[in-house]
């Protein structure tokens, strides 16, 4: 079995990749994809810690991840609905161009 550090490093890498994508891409949907990757990386962290914990029968890690998956799905739905509504108004999904409230 791989050590805990292996899973944690994988989770950190996925988080960093998701963060990089969310901060650098222009399209709003890709930003949302980056956020989903970050949430998944955190879930992997929870499951890895649960597996290597001293009391795995408490199932705390699994419970957290189940609720996290549910919340992430709800957030993706609402976020995408917002993006569709914004597209309908601004006719673009470029995050740099949705700046009417600026300055």
């Amino acid at each position: 079995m791989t050590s805990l550090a292996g899973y944690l490093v994988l989770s950190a890498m996925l988080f960093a990749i998701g963060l990089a994508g969310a901060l650098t891409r222009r399209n709003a949907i890709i930003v949302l994809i980056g956020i989903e990757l970050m949430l998944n990386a955190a879930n992997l962290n929870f499951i890895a810690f649960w597996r290597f914990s001293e009391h795995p029968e408490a199932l705390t890690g699994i419970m957290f991840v189940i609720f996290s998956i549910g919340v992430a799905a709800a957030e993706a739905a609402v976020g995408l609905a917002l993006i569709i509504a914004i597209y309908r108004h601004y006719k673009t999904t470029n995050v740099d161009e949705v700046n009417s409230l600026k300055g």
Partner: protein
Amino acid sequence: MTLPFLIVAALTIAAAVAAMTLRNLVHCSLALVGAFVGLAAAYLQLDAQFVGFAQVLVYVGAVAILIVFAVLLTRGGEAPAGTVFSSSWKWGALVAAVVFGLLAWAIKNSFASDRRPTPQVEATVKQIGEALMTKFVLPLEVIGLLLTAALIGAVIIAMRDEAKSK
């Protein structure tokens, strides 16, 4: 670092990088599906079977399809003409690199490297169900409410306003 873990990790990271760097949005969404499946394989390696299958069912079966529909509804089917990265992409990449460096340093200096796995881990669906109904019943009800609110909210936000759009 066993071989199955290395293969799964390599595939997941390759899929995540592809999801963040490809030009065509639909290709990005499909690469994201690959990352989700890789993560589900990691969960199965960690003996969390229920979570692994729930990940495939919810993320691959629902969230990925949502993303794909949104891409098509916002006319993202064709690759954009200019660059796909925003003007301040260097700062974003720097922040991500710093975050990863910090996390890796924290992991290296912690107990994580020499933690042995607990030998007998069993998370049957029966135990999860019992825990959901006794210890975690309040979060269960709250997440039911949250999902209902999100469902109604998403439909109302994305609904076409018949009166206003002339």
